[in-house]
């Protein structure tokens, strides 16, 4: 039917215009007014409608083909040969689903806790959602770049307006760091445009390039994506941004925006500059393993819960980049697919788990207004339901089989084992480190005696918080126990991708 053809545009513009509508509706300056209440319901309805639309997308998704689906292509800026070109395949579709799944949860989580200008808060998240879906479906360089950078604006405002004490420093650092990384990607796009005559991603993928060109373009892309992922050593913006952001902001940042970096590697770097990627694969693997091991140790030393989870995010994303760049080190063919699939699954799982963990910390913060581990202890005594959820998510973060965290990590470790024993050795250390820092935090916060008077006065989960955490728990267990639908969505696309990457694009000597 006609709507199916334009479902991607709908998915992008429904939240954007919905966000504008929420903004215009306003909250009459008072977060407790009935107008504000109506505004919240409108925001929730729009985000749920977007989620339902994405389910429709999933339902009609053909898992047997690697070609782009739901393609929309019209001329946008004729003078520059820029097109409004959308399409999804097995790599982007799960990420879109993740985005539309997380946003309603974030809106519910911010229902009562945001008291200052809530209309702008919800509008920012809705517009951000639309832009993020756009990034995942864009197939034209300028369109991709416009949405990529435009994403920074709502997040900049979210951290800056509703964040913590050092929010201005954190949000400026976030914006300028990611902006600097991304502009070099723009230069690479323009260079490729001058070579191919259009900004079409597929034209970029097909044009032959010398090794020197590929290396430079890879570096340009690397800077943009490494900052986004974030990879060591350009990761320093993340702990600040996560700590200072409001709960909803941290969730969206961790669950979705970090995935943009990984998506960039797999959509742009690998297919467009395969020889450049091969040249730098060793570097990428090294940086990923440093992230996994070194950042794991850094996480162990944290006393601020949000900072700990932020470092844990960096370590988990190290797994993702490791999986993506194993292709050339693996002797047998299936290893490469396993690595990339593992990285993708890890992205989805990490989105769910870290989102959940930040929500848990948010629940505690709303009550006690502290993120320090030392201010807690024995929470299980006063908040047993919450404790159950937190332990579940902590186990998922550590990679317990049965939870979603295990599936991705297991795939990547097997793939790295096929490549090199030492890769697998260091990668597997995450199983120990991840368990160490997560479970140690949980032990200090949740278990033990109640020594702190704040903890003694804690009330257990509200219905709203219960719904949010419950839904996430179901998702985590679902992906962990039955990952087949997720893996099926991407398997054909990944296989085609591996074939494509293996073909060299060099123009000759």
């Amino acid at each position, binding site marked *: 039917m006609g709507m199916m053809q334009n479902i991607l545009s709908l998915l992008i513009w429904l939240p954007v215009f919905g966000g504008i509508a929420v903004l215009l509706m306003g909250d009459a300056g008072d977060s407790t007014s009935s107008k504000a209440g109506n505004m919240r319901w409108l925001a929730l309805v729009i985000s749920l409608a977007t989620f339902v639309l994405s389910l429709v997308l999933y339902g009609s998704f053909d898992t047997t083909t690697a070609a782009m689906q739901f393609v929309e292509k019209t001329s*946008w*800026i*004729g*003078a*520059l040969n820029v097109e409004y070109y959308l399409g999804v395949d097995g790599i982007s579709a799960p990420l879109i689903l993740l985005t539309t799944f997380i946003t309603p949860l974030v809106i519910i989580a911010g229902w009562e806790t945001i008291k200052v*200008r809530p209309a*702008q808060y919800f509008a920012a998240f809705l517009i951000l959602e639309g832009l993020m879906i756009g990034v995942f479906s864009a197939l034209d360089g*300028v369109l991709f*770049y*416009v*949405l990529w*950078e*435009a994403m*920074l*604006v709502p997040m*900049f*405002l979210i951290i*800056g*307006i509703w964040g913590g004490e050092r*929010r*201005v420093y954190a*949000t*400026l650092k976030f*914006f*300028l760091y990611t*902006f*600097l990384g991304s*502009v*070099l990607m*723009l*230069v690479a796009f*323009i*260079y490729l*445009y*001058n070579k191919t005559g259009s900004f079409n991603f597929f034209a970029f993928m097909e044009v032959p390039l010398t090794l020197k060109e590929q290396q430079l373009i890879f570096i340009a892309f690397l800077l943009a994506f490494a900052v986004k992922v974030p990879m060591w050593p350009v990761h320093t913006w993340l702990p600040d941004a996560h700590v200072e952001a409001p709960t909803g902001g941290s969730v969206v940042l961790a669950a979705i925006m970090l995935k943009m970096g990984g998506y960039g590697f797999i959509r742009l770097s690998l297919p467009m500059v395969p020889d450049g990627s091969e040249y730098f694969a060793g570097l990428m693997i090294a940086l990923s393993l440093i992230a996994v091991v070194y950042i794991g140790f850094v996480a162990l030393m944290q006393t601020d819960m949000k900072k700990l989870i932020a470092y844990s995010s960096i370590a988990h994303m190290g797994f993702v980049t490791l999986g993506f760049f194993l292709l050339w080190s693996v002797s047998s063919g299936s290893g490469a697919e396993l690595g990339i699939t593992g990285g993708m699954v890890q992205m989805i799982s990490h989105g769910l788990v870290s989102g959940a963990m930040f929500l848990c910390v948010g629940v505690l913060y709303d009550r006690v207004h502290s993120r320090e581990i030392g201010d807690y202890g024995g929470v299980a005594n006063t908040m047993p339901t919450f404790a159950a959820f937190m332990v579940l998510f902590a186990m998922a973060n550590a990679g317990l089989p049965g939870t979603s965290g295990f599936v991705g990590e297991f795939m990547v470790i097997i793939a790295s084992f096929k490549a090199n024993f030492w890769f697998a050795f260091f990668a597997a250390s995450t199983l120990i480190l991840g368990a160490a820092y997560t479970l140690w935090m949980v032990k200090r916060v949740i278990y033990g005696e109640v020594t702190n008077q704040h903890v003694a006065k804690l009330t257990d989960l509200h219905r709203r918080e219960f719904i949010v955490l419950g839904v996430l728990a179901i998702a985590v267990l679902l992906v962990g126990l039955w990952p087949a639908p997720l893996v099926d969505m991407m398997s054909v696309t990944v296989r085609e991708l591996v074939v494509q990457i293996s073909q060299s694009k060099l123009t000759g000597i």
Partner: protein
Amino acid sequence: MICVVLIADLFISDENRVVTFWLSIASLLITGWALVASAPEARTLVFDGSYVSDALSQILKLAACGMVGVGFWYARDYLRQNQLLKGEFYLLGLFGLLGMMIMISANSLLTMYLGLETLSLSLYALVAFDRNSAVAAEAAMKYFVLGAIASGAFLYGISWVYGVTGSLQFDAIAAAVQGGEANGMPLWFGMAFMIAGIAFKFGAVPFHSWLPDVYQGARSPITLYIASAPKLAALALLLRILVDGLGDLHEVWQGMIMVLAVLSLLIGNIVAIAQTNIKRMLGYSAIAHVGFILLAVFTGTDDGYAAALFYTLTYVVMAAGAFGMIILLSRNGFEAENLADFKGLNARSPWFAMMMLFFMFGMAGVPPWVGFIAKLNAISAVLDAGFPGLAILMVVASVIGAYYYLRVIWYMYFEGAEDRSVFQANIDTRVILSLNGLAVLILGIMPGWLLAVCIDAIARTY
């Protein structure tokens, strides 16, 4: 029309000064209509070859009329509150516009100089418009003295070029250069002096020292006027002289322009970070933007010229909006010229805070606002001409520049409001300012038509 307004103003008393305003707007509308109605298909030379009408001149003149009109509109309420609403403001503004139109359509060095001086003298007088302000008088003196020196240098350059090529008209100069007999050190010498004069008008480093002081010293509506429309005329000045007249000397002036551009880009962006006065900050940001425009022209390609044209047009819209916001926040006796005056604007007026956000992100080059498309074009032209290092410099400079634009947004959104007074602007001014802001967003999302117009204009002109 200017004479009509001048005479009419004599008979209008102070209370009805707004009639002068409406007369000025009417004259602008008539001029605009006349431009469109009489647009010739091909390049037409009039006045014995000293005046040309082509696609480039059409666009720039229309844009200049529009921006002057917007400037007048924003100025009206501010001037009224500050007891500055004199007819002379509109007269000087219209004379300045006349100067700009002459510059834009000039086909001879002397005509160009005539237009340049008409514009400059009007601007000197406008800067000094507020008789009670010492800062304005100081700024006017600086502008006048430095401007006179720059005009002198420009005239000196003209005399050398005339001496070498034997003609003042661009066509004849181009023919002489092509002939080969004129090419040599004397011609380059004259050209260098002319470029110095042009750079002064633009505000390019190292001829920029007047710019921050004049921007800060003049009253806000006058700064708006200086910041917007004359940039269009300066672009015409640059293109006419360097491309129309001396196009074949491209390799010679390329190096000069590149040095000016790179210095402007770096110094403009870096020094702007240190500013606490927003008018001064916008002045240094103007220098940085001029760096971008000069880099686009330096490429010497049609793509580059079209990119420069698009950039100038969109920059002028954004600058008008930014200064319009400063005017909006000002009231009698209080000039909202410090960055701190923007604190908490989101709490005072979320709509106008968002408009300022549009202008700031637009100037920073963040998508989806139109500043990004302008920068994209310029970078593309530079990269295509084979200068990847310069392209990287341009993007890095943009990121450095982003900081001071972000700072304004930081003050508006992340800080509490210290000043809770009501805006003193009428509804029509607010509407136009809002349309200005929305234009920056909409042009960013739908830039195709304007881009096509610019490319077409350059193609038809060259």
